[in-house]
């Protein structure tokens, strides 16, 4: 590699400092000199944590947060400066060259990067499993509230889906396809070595600004060390820590606007009137009024219309301010950060704000003992009564928003009572908060002498997670008696890990051993009180005792996990790599008839071909590694108390007084245990053509068995089902990540990152009888989520004879294919039409650098999935509510084949599946790095300004608000969706938002 010296004589200030620095008292033959240096990357960003080694000695140091290092060396010494994913540089220093600026270039050789692999780190070149590191660029300068939002489409094999854009909501993450049918499929999240999953906390509690790196363990061998929690993939987050030196104050902040990315516009007045007339005609009714409801007449006669979507929405605002201070001495290093995030939603009443504080501390107590803490506090606030977007889309443009006294009307389309005023939620009180108070500590002992290489680490984590919710709905919000509720919960969790590591080099043999003994426990307790019958709305939820009727409830549970793990890494000459791991997990949730313990072993091999003599000097191949692994991991899947037969309490009134009763509820299964995933992965990591192309390709195949399913029982038993470990699924896929440097000029550079992943998911077995489960639409040999439905071929037209195929069908009714050819349309004509998860996903990032300007464009795509489109059918409500203008209807004068008539009743339960593929311009970031020469004048270490836009445009065939988001129809919900911020139901339909922010990253000297 080419070595480049940069003399920075203009840094006279530093030179002065060097001169003033005291000279070593120890006398050597050679003169000692003090070197001060600054390490930067090619874009001018300083590089904290770069390692400076003095060649030929054991002397070394690292750069501080400003990228500055100081070292005392012999005159004429050679320094070697290295940094992850950068080409190492060596420079010679001498008396006349004591202040240096080193610019490191990306080597594309990510193989030298250090990656977190769980219970330790490894050099990228030594990794044998499939471990994806999230590109650093995705961790900054993006207006996201949850780090997963930044990952969407950016990491191969990690499928992130944003099913809701409600402020404070979290996207769903799926690593390498869905293993479980009924159990959770989300990856296990570990922050700084301590599990975040199963403590009640969420990634909302982790401020993205604090994240230094993020790794995703994907293949069975990499996740095996997380045993019964590993099979859905593991996300490892490492937060920033101090690197010593003078305090560095950084400010990262942005502020901007949010708008509805796409509006499914409701019909305007004229179109609404026409629809009503057509509806009456199609249902054989005579029209007596131009509008369906009497209360609409005055507005209609006056020609007044209301844009309800506009009434229910607002200009969204998003801002985030983060200040961090880091520094320390060689023995005490600190990183402290505080963050304030505020998001005002685009639908009225929605907001999210978060205050988070982090303090990470590392102390070298002695040369063999290091202790440290990672403490954080996050306060999530989702308060606020909210408008109902679904009702806003249903309102007549001639409806009445306000009463004469300025309050909201209850029924804008009176006497239509089905739809209340979409804004009523705004006059309710809603409190929704959660706090995560987390304290992690570690102590690390290094042994010497014969035990050299042995390290013991005690890792402890404690989480206290209180939540508080309260609500009040009163007279103004259509609750004549007033209804209040208040609930609070607390979750206490601890984790204790004993980790023993041993490293030994014997000639070219390198050994690493990791041993773990750990215990985790969680206690949960919640209470809820509700009250109705308040004198007036004065007290809100603050005095439940003032309600005439009160209820209370509470719930408590406990969860415990006890684990042992061992891992051996062996490598020979950095050419042949071998990893063997085994974990044994015992969990309280497993049945009393099992041992409660499961074994999860794995093995992996790696071959660094490029380190072989025949490739060592290749100019084409810079690095090449083959990887192969096989292993087993688990999914705890069972939730607490499912192995025990339980009774439920009920109430029933006699003589006006309700009495407690009990009824049999859950039939327990004492044999329940984890779901097991077993699979193989082969992969290749490569870097070619002077590192201009590098990347990784992985192929995998996994089988999951012992899937937890509700085995249906004959109802004669008194129970409908019992939970059992019976199903089997399989996933196969290919992942490609490619980083290229397309143009690499002096002033202009263009880099691209391609990410592609495809996963084939199928159900192998359900209940052991080889039969499909039609009710749940699970089919053996097909993916877990499929569309099984009638095939719509068009619409019955006037004059067509439906009597043979679909007796009773009128013109304007949907026409379905007689797939089984029996001449009739029956339930047997339903066929599998596609899958609900994408066949493939991909992302392309193009980054352009011109001098100090950087432009990054990220495009994401998800292809090949179907989704039921609820907006195509409003059941029996089409004549009673407004409908989207883009969704037409059949009529004699508009004989479309795409839409049904207004009188059509969907008696077959057809779901209206449509292609939900989309391509999105997800993020565009334009940044400007203020040149150092300018910064020096204002005494600032670095300064970057950026403009970032999110969800700029979506290309799709979907007719609706958005193909990715779930919109619920009136009265429906997804009780399975786990969202702390809101319930995933029809009252929380929320559009995709387009965000523009202006931001700055500043670090002060």
């Amino acid at each position, binding site marked *: 590699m080419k070595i480049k010296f940069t003399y920075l004589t203009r840094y006279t200030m530093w030179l002065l400092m060097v001169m003033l620095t005291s000279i070593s008292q120890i006398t050597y033959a050679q003169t000692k000199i003090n070197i001060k240096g600054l390490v930067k990357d090619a874009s001018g960003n300083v590089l904290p944590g770069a390692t400076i080694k003095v060649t030929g000695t054991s002397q070394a140091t690292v750069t501080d947060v400003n990228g500055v290092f100081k070292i005392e060396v012999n005159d004429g010494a050679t320094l070697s400066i290295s940094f992850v994913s950068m080409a190492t540089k060596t420079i010679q220093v001498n008396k006349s060259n004591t202040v240096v600026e080193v610019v490191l270039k990306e080597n594309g050789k990510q193989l030298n990067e250090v990656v977190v692999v769980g219970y330790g780190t490894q050099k990228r070149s030594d990794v044998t499993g499939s471990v994806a590191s999230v590109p650093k660029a995705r961790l900054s300068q993006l207006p996201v509230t949850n780090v997963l939002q930044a990952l969407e489409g950016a990491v191969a094999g990690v499928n992130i889906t944003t099913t809701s854009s409600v402020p404070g909501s979290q996207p769903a993450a799926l690593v390498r396809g869905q293993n479980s049918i009924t159990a959770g499929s989300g990856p296990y999240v570990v922050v700084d070595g301590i599990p975040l999953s199963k403590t009640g906390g969420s990634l909302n509690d982790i401020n993205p600004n604090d994240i230094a790196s993020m790794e995703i363990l994907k293949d069975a061998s990499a996740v095996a060390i997380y045993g019964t929690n590993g099979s859905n993939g593991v996300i490892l987050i490492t937060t920033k820590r101090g690197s010593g030196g003078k305090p560095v104050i950084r400010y990262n902040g942005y502020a901007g606007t949010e708008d509805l990315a796409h509006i499914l516009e409701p019909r305007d007045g004229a179109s609404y009137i026409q629809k009503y007339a057509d509806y009456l005609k199609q249902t054989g*009714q005579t029209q*007596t009024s131009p509008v369906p409801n*009497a209360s609409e007449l005055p507005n209609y006669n006056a020609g007044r219309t209301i844009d309800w979507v506009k009434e229910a929405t607002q200009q969204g605002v998003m801002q985030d301010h983060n200040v961090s201070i880091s520094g320390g001495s060689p023995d005490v290093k600190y990183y402290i950060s505080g963050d304030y995030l505020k998001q005002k939603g685009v639908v009225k009443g929605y907001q999210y704000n978060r205050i988070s504080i982090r303090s990470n501390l590392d102390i070298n107590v*002695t040369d*063999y*003992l290091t202790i440290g803490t990672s403490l954080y506090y996050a306060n999530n606030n989702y308060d606020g009564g909210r408008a109902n977007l679904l009702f806003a889309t249903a309102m007549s443009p001639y409806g009445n928003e306000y009463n004469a006294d300025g309050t909201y009307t209850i029924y804008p389309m009176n*006497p239509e*009572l089905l739809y209340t005023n979409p804004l009523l939620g705004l006059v309710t009180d809603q409190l929704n908060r959660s706090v995560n108070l987390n304290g992690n500590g570690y*102590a690390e*002992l290094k*042994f*010497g002498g014969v035990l050299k290489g042995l390290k*013991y680490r005690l890792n402890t984590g404690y989480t206290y997670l209180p939540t508080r919710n309260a609500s009040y709905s009163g007279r103004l919000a259509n609750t*004549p008696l007033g209804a209040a509720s208040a609930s609070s919960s607390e979750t206490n969790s601890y984790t*204790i890990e004993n980790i023993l590591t041993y490293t030994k080099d014997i000639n070219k043999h390198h050994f690493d051993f990791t041993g773990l*003994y*750990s*215990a985790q*426990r969680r206690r949960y307790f919640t209470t809820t009180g509700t009250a*109705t*019958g308040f004198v007036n709305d004065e007290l809100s939820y603050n005095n439940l005792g003032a309600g005439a*009727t*009160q209820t209370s409830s509470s*719930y408590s*549970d406990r969860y415990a996990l*006890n684990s042992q793990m061992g891992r051996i890494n062996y490598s020979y000459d950095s050419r042949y790599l071998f990893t063997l791991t085994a974990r044994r997990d015992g*969990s*309280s949730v*497993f049945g*009393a008839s099992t041992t409660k313990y499961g074994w999860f072993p794995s093995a992996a091999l790696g071959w660094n071909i490029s380190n072989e003599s025949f490739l060592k000097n290749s100019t084409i191949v810079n690095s090449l590694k083959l990887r192969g692994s096989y292993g087993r991991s688990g999914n705890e899947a069972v939730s*607490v*108390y499912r192995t*025990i*037969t*339980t*009774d*439920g309490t*009920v*109430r*029933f*009134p*006699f*003589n*006006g007084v*309700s009495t407690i*009763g*009990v*009824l*049999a509820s859950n039939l327990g299964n004492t044999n329940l245990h984890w779901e097991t995933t077993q699979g193989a992965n082969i992969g290749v990591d490569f870097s070619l053509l002077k590192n201009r192309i590098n990347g990784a390709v992985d192929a995998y195949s996994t089988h999951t068995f012992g899937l937890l399913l509700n085995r*249906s*029982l*004959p*109802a*004669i*038993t*008194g129970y*409908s089902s*019992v939970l059992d470990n019976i199903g089997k699924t399989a996933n196969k896929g290919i992942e490609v990540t490619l980083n290229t440097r397309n143009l690499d000029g002096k002033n202009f550079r263009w880099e691209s990152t391609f990410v592609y992943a495809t996963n084939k998911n199928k159900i192998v077995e359900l209940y052991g*009888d080889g039969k499909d489960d039609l009710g749940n639409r699970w089919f053996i040999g097909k993916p877990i989520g499929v569309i099984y439905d009638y095939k719509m071929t068009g619409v019955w037209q006037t004059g067509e004879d439906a009597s043979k195929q679909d007796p009773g069908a009128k013109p304007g009714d949907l026409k379905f294919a007689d797939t089984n050819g029996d001449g009739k349309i029956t339930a047997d004509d339903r066929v599998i039409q596609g899958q609900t998860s994408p066949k493939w996903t991909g992302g392309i990032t193009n980054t352009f650098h011109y001098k100090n300007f950087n432009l990054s464009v990220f495009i994401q795509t998800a292809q090949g999935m179907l989704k039921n489109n609820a907006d195509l059918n409003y059941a029996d409500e089409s004549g009673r509510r407004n409908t989207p203008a883009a969704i037409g209807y059949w009529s004699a004068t508009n004989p479309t084949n795409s839409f049904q008539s207004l009188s059509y009743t969907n*008696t077959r339960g057809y779901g209206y599946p449509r292609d939900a593929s989309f391509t999105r311009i997800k993020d565009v970031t334009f940044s400007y790095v203020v040149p150092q020469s300018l910064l020096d004048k204002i005494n600032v270490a670095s300064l970057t300004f950026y403009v970032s836009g999110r969800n700029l445009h979506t290309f799709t065939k979907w007719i609706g608000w958005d193909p990715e988001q779930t919109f619920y129809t009136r009265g429906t919900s997804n009780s399975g969706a786990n969202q702390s911020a809101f319930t995933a139901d029809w009252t929380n339909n929320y559009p995709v938002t387009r965000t523009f922010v202006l931001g700055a990253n500043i670090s002060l000297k």
Partner: protein
Amino acid sequence: MKKYSIILFAVSVVIAFASCKKSYLDEKPYSTYTPLTLTDSLGFEAALVGLYNFESTILTYSSAQGWPSVWQVGTDVANATANQQGIEVPYYNYAQLTSTDGAASYIWGKYYSMINNANIIIDGVENPSAKIGTVGKNAADAEAKFFRAYAYNNLVTLFGKVPLVVHTLTAPKTDFVRASLDDVNAQIVNDLTFAISNLADLTAGTGKLNSQGKPVGRASKYMAMQLLAEVYLRMGKNDLAEQQAQAVINSGKFSLIKARYGVRAGGAGDYYSDMFVYGNERRAQGNSEAIWVLEQENPSSEVGGNTDAAQQRRVWGAAYYNISGLVISDTLGGRSIGRLRLSNWVLYGLYPTGDMRNSQYSIRRRYYYNDVTKPAIFGQQVPFTGPDTLYKICPSTTKWGAYDPNDVFGYAMIKDFMMMRLGETYLLLAEAQVKQGKTADAATSINVLRTRANAPQVTADQMTLNFVLDERARELIGEENRRMTLMRTGTLVERSLRLNSNDVQHPTTGLAAKNLLLPIPLSEIQLNKDAVLDQNPGY
């Protein structure tokens, strides 16, 4: 220093390992009862209360809003309207009544679940280690057996031969077979016989407690007797049925309502309609006819007062809110949506002139504009036009009318369920008498009801089973499960086709003899993989 580090290491390892006792992974539910609850008298008492709650969940089922229609439409008394929901469709369009039918599957599962809950109690009290005295034990046993018999009688009426399960299961079982009718009937008769001798008696008058000191809403011996009368009728043991019905009547604990009473006594109405006003329905509220009333309370004033969102009012009442100029009101019975409409046979052919059961207070046939903001039409009669008469202002029974000013939309209905009353006892008696050829006695029994209703008297030569069934419709419209009555008497096909075959909106089609039984749910046949559960003929 090295030594210290080793000691430190040793200590921390010891601490970490010591924390894991063997019980560390044990599971104990902190806030949920397990079957261990059921070992003492308080536990049995709670389990018995559970049975009433359970029956209530069947009646108030709201996931399929057309649920109450299933038992009425496509029979002789009612038809589905344009506002039908879906679950009731196969019950007039019988071609769709197949082994995957939702309603059949639901009711099958619910009654077996009730049987399981009753079996848990029966096994529990009969266990020698149960902590309960003999008297309490027999009373609890009897109450559980009443519900078990009730569930089995419903199952047999609907499905014919069914598997007989009389003990709770400890493990999943998949080899059930259908027991003979004789075996199931014998079990029902045994359970009811035991119940009659061990259940509480009633005190005279309107006391709130029965002879065992429990609320009068709990099972009494008369509930078991009335049920046994119906069981015997189904079994063809008409003389025994007559005895049981007669015994209820002769007990002197009940009398027909023949005078105005209760919360609306001073308002518009008549005494027959008084019985169906919320606040009047229970024995303790003055309803001297009440044998079994399943009580409901408004949960906004009594926590746990109801179980689900009962749909009866919405199903039975007219959707008058759809007519401009009519607003939802108490006097019109609250908000209904008319999912079913009484058949023309009921509306125009059933009642003789003067029959109180057909008064405007029991079957509302005319509507008057009541929207005060429309003075031009206020008070005028709403004219009948187009589809209005088919569900918007169709004539409908007022028995399910209910209005909560705090819940105008009224998705749920708060109203008691009249499960058994003395009026029906006379009809059971008359049926038993007719079937034995005692037509004069039958006429006497019917005339008791006719006298009460100010309807013309009948004579012995008019007495046929069909007449009794007509009279049941007159007396019990809206209350009885009409489908089950016709299935029990084997008259579903003949009567439905003869009296109600050509409804304008949803005519009854495909009704055949096989429909005298419902299909055994296909899923049950399939899940019962270790033995054959025969399907009913024709399905």
